[in-house]
């Protein structure tokens, strides 16, 4: 640039100063921790040269609050802006751990609010890359109010634009609630943590020794708490995951999800489906194998893979169009519904509904998990969440009953009278009020009491029940399901059915909001 005046000199000097501020020293300090720098993350996430940074030069408003000096670095520890991901406009903020530990002060918060507002104004997704020590103590209540306003913006945008939180370092105290309010949380193994109170406080209050990892590491949140929806080995893979997830979402709740030409034939031969489900109702199989065969090749992207594994949730494509899949997993706990799987499923369905993503349900469920533990913890209330979510969802909803469909679980898993658009069943389906073993003990109580060999007799009755009552044909003939289909035709049937529902709209009753059992 040809520079002849002081104006430009200052302009360039400032840029130079900022460059130094974000120089190799800072970058290296992150690298040494196994982490990328805030700017490197942004560069990886967005299409080449597409990111436009905003407020790069703002500094903290209160240099010294009496609680200690504040770093007056440009940007105040967070990079904000917008750019393109796979060609689409996305807003983002990325916390910079090298500036005061990424701590959140008033200006830092204001910057985040700014992109939150902008994203909502234009109807574009927003991604938060979080790597922060928490509230900036030196700024006192100002930083707390900053958190509160971030939360408020999160809630305002909820269900209007997709919000994704990516935990790439610590997220402690108040900081955890913004991610919790967004739609999906990513974490990176070994270098990210989330907890409301850290190990030191736990030690002081409860005198328990816990490590960062055991308290709030990525694996704990993926497997035990279910807080993290996706975990990855490293940051580069995490960022690839974000892009993949985004490819299923529309930019806002007015649009339909995007399309990818997957080159997978509609009438692909899926004869393997005929033999995948074992005839023996007590034998497990992997429902993910079924999903992989039905969905477009390599398109299935699982959500909350490690949490409540008895229910599989995830996005996939059918003939290039995005769908959400909710499927019982017979491999884990026979695919039974319990508290965790109910909440997992409910939250997933509500996301799909908010963003016009049709829902496919693959059902093979023996019922709800019985027992003291589950009842005392409120399976009634939590199971109702799944019921509520299915019933409320107005997107196209299709169910395929693969095998077991018993009792309350039949109703819950998107039955027709719950608003399901189409219900298909495979010939292997067993639909009844109760499983054969339970039912015959009630139906043939007397006979069994007087039998010489009650065990064998029960078996025979159960077989009879299975054949005569628990088959899909009764439900089919009475109209409770739409069609019994050849498993090999499932893919084709689903594509045609979902296509027929593309214009589906259900008038929502006018109300503030329903009262979901929480």
């Amino acid at each position, binding site marked *: 640039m040809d520079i002849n005046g002081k104006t430009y000199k200052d302009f360039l000097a400032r840029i130079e100063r900022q460059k130094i501020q974000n120089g190799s020293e800072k970058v290296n300090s992150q*690298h040494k921790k*196994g982490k990328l720098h805030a*700017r490197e993350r942004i560069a990886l996430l967005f299409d080449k040269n597409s*990111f436009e940074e905003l407020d790069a030069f703002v500094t903290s408003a209160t240099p010294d609050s009496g609680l200690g000096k504040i770093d007056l670095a440009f940007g105040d520890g967070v990079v904000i802006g917008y750019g393109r991901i796979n060609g689409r406009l996305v807003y983002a903020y990325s916390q910079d751990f090298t500036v005061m530990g990424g701590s959140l002060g008033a200006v830092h918060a204001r910057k985040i609010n700014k992109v939150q507002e902008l994203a909502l104004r234009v109807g574009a997704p927003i991604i938060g890359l979080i790597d922060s020590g928490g509230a900036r103590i030196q700024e006192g209540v100002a930083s707390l109010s900053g958190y509160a306003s971030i939360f408020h913006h999160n809630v305002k945008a909820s269900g209007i634009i997709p919000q994704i939180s990516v935990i790439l370092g610590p997220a402690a105290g108040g900081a955890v609630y913004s991610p919790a309010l967004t739609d999906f949380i990513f974490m990176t193994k070994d270098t990210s943590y989330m907890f409301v109170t850290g190990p030191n406080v736990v030690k002081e209050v409860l005198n328990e020794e816990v490590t960062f990892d055991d308290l709030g590491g990525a694996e704990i949140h993926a497997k035990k708490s279910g807080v993290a929806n996706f975990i990855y*080995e*490293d*940051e580069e*893979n995490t960022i690839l995951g974000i892009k993949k997830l985004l490819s299923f979402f529309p930019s806002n709740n007015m649009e339909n999800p995007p399309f990818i030409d997957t080159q997978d034939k509609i009438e692909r031969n899926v004869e393997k489906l005929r033999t995948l489900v074992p005839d023996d109702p007590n034998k497990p199989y992997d429902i993910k194998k079924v999903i992989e065969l039905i969905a477009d090749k390599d398109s299935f992207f699982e959500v909350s893979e490690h949490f409540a594994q008895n229910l599989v949730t995830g996005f996939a494509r059918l003939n290039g169009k995005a769908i959400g899949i909710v499927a019982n997993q017979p*491999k884990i706990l026979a695919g039974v519904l319990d508290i965790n799987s109910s909440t997992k499923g409910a939250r997933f369905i509500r996301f799909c509904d908010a963003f016009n993503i049709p829902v496919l349900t693959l059902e093979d469920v023996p019922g709800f998990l019985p027992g003291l533990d589950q009842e005392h913890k409120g399976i009634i209330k939590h199971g109702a969440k799944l019921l509520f979510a299915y019933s409320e969802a107005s997107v196209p909803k299709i169910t395929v009953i693969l095998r077991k469909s018993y009792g309350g679980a039949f109703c819950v898993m998107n039955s027709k009278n719950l608003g399901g658009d189409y219900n298909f069943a495979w010939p292997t389906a067993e639909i009844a009020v109760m499983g054969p073993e339970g039912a015959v003990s009630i139906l043939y109580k007397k006979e069994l009491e007087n039998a010489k060999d009650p065990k064998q007799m029960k078996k025979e009755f159960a077989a009879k029940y299975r054949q005569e009552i628990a088959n899909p044909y009764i439900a089919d003939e009475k109209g409770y399901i739409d069609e019994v289909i050849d498993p090999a035709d499932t893919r084709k049937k689903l594509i045609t059915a979902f296509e027929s529902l593309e214009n589906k709209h259900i008038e929502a009753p006018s109300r503030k909001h329903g009262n979901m059992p929480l």
Partner: protein
Amino acid sequence: MMVSRSKSKKQKFISCTEKNKKYEFVNPKELYIKQGKENIPIEIVSDKQGFVYIVWKKRKYLVDIIEKNQNQYEILVNGVSYSISVESPFSYKRRKYLAKNKEASKVEKIQAPMPGKIIEFLVEENQEIKEGEPLLILEAMKMQNEIISNIHGKIKNINFNAEDTVMKDDVLIEVEK
């Protein structure tokens, strides 16, 4: 303000084995492996039946990916399995940094190598064990398999009971080094 990605034409991939041996490949799609200063070409042959072979230095290797998760690959070469994680130069550095930290962690998790039923535990909590000592018996395929400790140490936790059914990779026992 623009933030741009520095992207050189050279794409470097670092394949790490279980024992942390590393192999570096620049632009593997150009189909050669560098040995010393020489680039020795690789040929990929696939036959009608769907078997894929790599031909290198006049040797033919049957290759087969049997598991893949993110950047972790399990590959059979001539039937022998290799666990490989493919890293970028940065993630490799990160891996090394984390490995250093992990050495400090003292707990070894013994995982189920396959789904099955636990027949019995041969050890108790707080028991000292030697490397190679059987820890429990897991039944799968009607065969009872001894799960063996790969380290010396003390049993910290036993996470299941006899008769429990476990899935692959479930942490059965935690051993303190």
